[in-house]
């Protein structure tokens, strides 16, 4: 690793070799493109999707595991050592996790698309092993955390929910017939909720407390709202899971209230950070992040309306789509636009031996193309699901493909610029 490349830690090596986070990020961008492509091919089945194998399930897992989890793992492996002020003990598990995840997600998605049980089982096994390596590595880092305990606690919740979500996923694929698993749809919804609101949501809620203030250069926040956000989110996830697995629907309203509470504390803190921002021009990444917060509120409102019995056509598909493509994907694309050039600047060599400019390490055109196409895609697909119009979903997915190609171009350009810099181990 170069001298500059060991920034954030030197002897402590809190900055990983560029190869670890960047291979996760670039792979996430490629799976993002594949997810929209598969959705385009399966446009006729999207609105009425209620579960089961097929291309829609494959597209969902290309997005959740291929894009969201890959991004989350790459970002967590790099960011938690900085947040906790404790370096990862070894770098090889990061490479090993990737080596398991990449074929695992590809095989799992292929198996789901083509109803190939063996491929799904093998893919799920490899993916879970990759996730376990990530869980063990991050847990070891969080265990030694010496600062910002509220963020570390969010990390623990994310790891716990990931573990349970992965376990439920494996159980569903293997079709183990236990009494507790008789409610398969409840299990699938719990799996989705723990993976999205639990794993991804906890990471976003926790890391936002340090990343967003850094991005916008704002004043610090008191820790108590962060703890309240964590407590309410954990309560919501626990009660929601119990209510679905035990088929005791009354509890779900308690989960929803707690979910609204946790989200409320989170968004209140984000608003406070933005109000005290010393940076006025926050750029395109914050257009995406702000929009994602709107989608987060929309998912909770849709769930409430659905549970209250309001007749929303294809409500289950719509909620899943807004949750995954609206909230999570939009947010992560916004964050990646900021952290990829920032990380690259610590690894890449600039002209005349001086550090490179961030603007030289990004690609504004492809990112603008992505933003325009992404919002159009989410809107058209959402309307298409409600109206049960495959044509709208097809046009939306096609725009999604174009946008994802733009984002992948950006990710590859940044990664190539890092490769042109000093070699990293």
């Amino acid at each position, binding site marked *: 690793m170069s001298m500059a490349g060991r*920034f*954030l830690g030197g*002897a402590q090596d809190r900055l990983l070799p560029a190869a670890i986070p960047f291979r996760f990020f670039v792979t996430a961008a490629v799976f993002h493109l594949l997810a929209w492509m598969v959705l385009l091919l399966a446009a006729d089945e999207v609105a009425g999707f209620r579960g089961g194998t097929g291309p829609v399930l494959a597209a969902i897992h290309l997005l959740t595991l291929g894009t969201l989890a890959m991004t989350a793992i790459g970002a967590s492996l790099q960011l938690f050592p900085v947040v906790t002020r404790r370096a990862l003990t070894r770098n090889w598990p990061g490479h090993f996790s990737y080596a398991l995840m990449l074929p695992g997600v590809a095989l799992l998605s292929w198996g789901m698309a083509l109803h190939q049980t063996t491929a799904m089982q093998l893919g799920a096994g490899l993916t879970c092993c990759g996730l376990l390596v990530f869980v063990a590595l991050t847990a070891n880092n969080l265990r030694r955390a010496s*600062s910002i305990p509220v963020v570390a606690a969010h990390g623990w919740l994310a790891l716990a929910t990931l573990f349970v979500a992965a376990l439920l996923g494996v159980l569903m694929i293997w079709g183990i017939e236990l009494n507790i698993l008789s409610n398969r749809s409840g299990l699938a919804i719990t799996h989705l909720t723990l993976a999205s609101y639990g794993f991804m949501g906890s990471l976003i809620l926790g890391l936002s407390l*340090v990343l967003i203030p*850094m991005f916008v250069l704002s004043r*610090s926040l008191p820790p108590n709202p962060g703890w309240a956000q964590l407590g309410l989110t954990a309560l919501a996830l626990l009660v929601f899971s119990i209510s679905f697995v035990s088929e005791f629907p009354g509890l779900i309203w308690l989960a929803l209230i707690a979910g609204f509470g946790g989200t409320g504390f989170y968004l209140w803190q984000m608003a406070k950070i933005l109000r005290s921002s010393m940076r006025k021009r926050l750029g395109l990444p914050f257009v995406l992040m702000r929009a994602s917060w709107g989608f987060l509120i929309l998912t909770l409102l849709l769930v409430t309306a659905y549970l209250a019995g309001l007749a929303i056509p294809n409500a289950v598909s719509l909620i899943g789509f807004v949750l995954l493509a609206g909230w999570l994907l939009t947010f992560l694309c916004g964050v990646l636009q900021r952290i990829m050039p920032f990380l690259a*600047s610590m690894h890449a060599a600039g002209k005349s031996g001086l*550090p490179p400019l961030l*603007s030289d390490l990004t690609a504004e055109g492809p990112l603008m193309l992505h933003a325009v196409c992404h919002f159009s895609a989410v809107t058209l697909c959402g309307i298409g699901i409600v109206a049960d119009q495959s044509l709208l979903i097809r046009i939306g997915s096609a725009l999604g493909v174009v946008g994802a190609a733009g984002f992948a171009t950006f990710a590859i350009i940044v990664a190539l610029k890092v490769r042109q810099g000093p070699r990293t181990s």
Partner: protein
Amino acid sequence: MSFTRRTAQLLHEDHQQTIIVIEALDQLIARARKKAPDTNDPIVRKTLENASGAIEEEISQHFAFEENQLFTRLEEMGDVSIGEHLRGEHRALLPLGQAVGTMARTALANGFTDESWATFLNTSGELIERMFAHIQKEEMALLPALEDLLDAETDIELSTAYADSH
């Protein structure tokens, strides 16, 4: 961010002051774009006055303190690369800050020509971009590292010396 070590807190407050000046410069550029602003405008004058004095003075004192007092201590602890990287950024920032200061003083006296504004625009643009990224790195990595690096006695000694030098 808030820090328990007074030295880290003082550097953080410096960052906030620098951000105010840099942000005002960024706003000036965003408003004026390619057309040279009127240097008789009170807001433009205030921004240029701050840029002519504060940036140059602040960053030279701030950088010198970090390089002479903090990076050396980090290096003694075996943490060489953080100082190397930030010194590299200082090497890029200092001449930019000095150039912007000089150009701002000239503009306050004589106004901008189209040519001098174009040069000011480019140099300030690079300064703004580099400075925001630099502060973000120090806030994220250097200042938290001081929490572990400095004991209470050294913290008081360093922070008092730094506060007195301002």
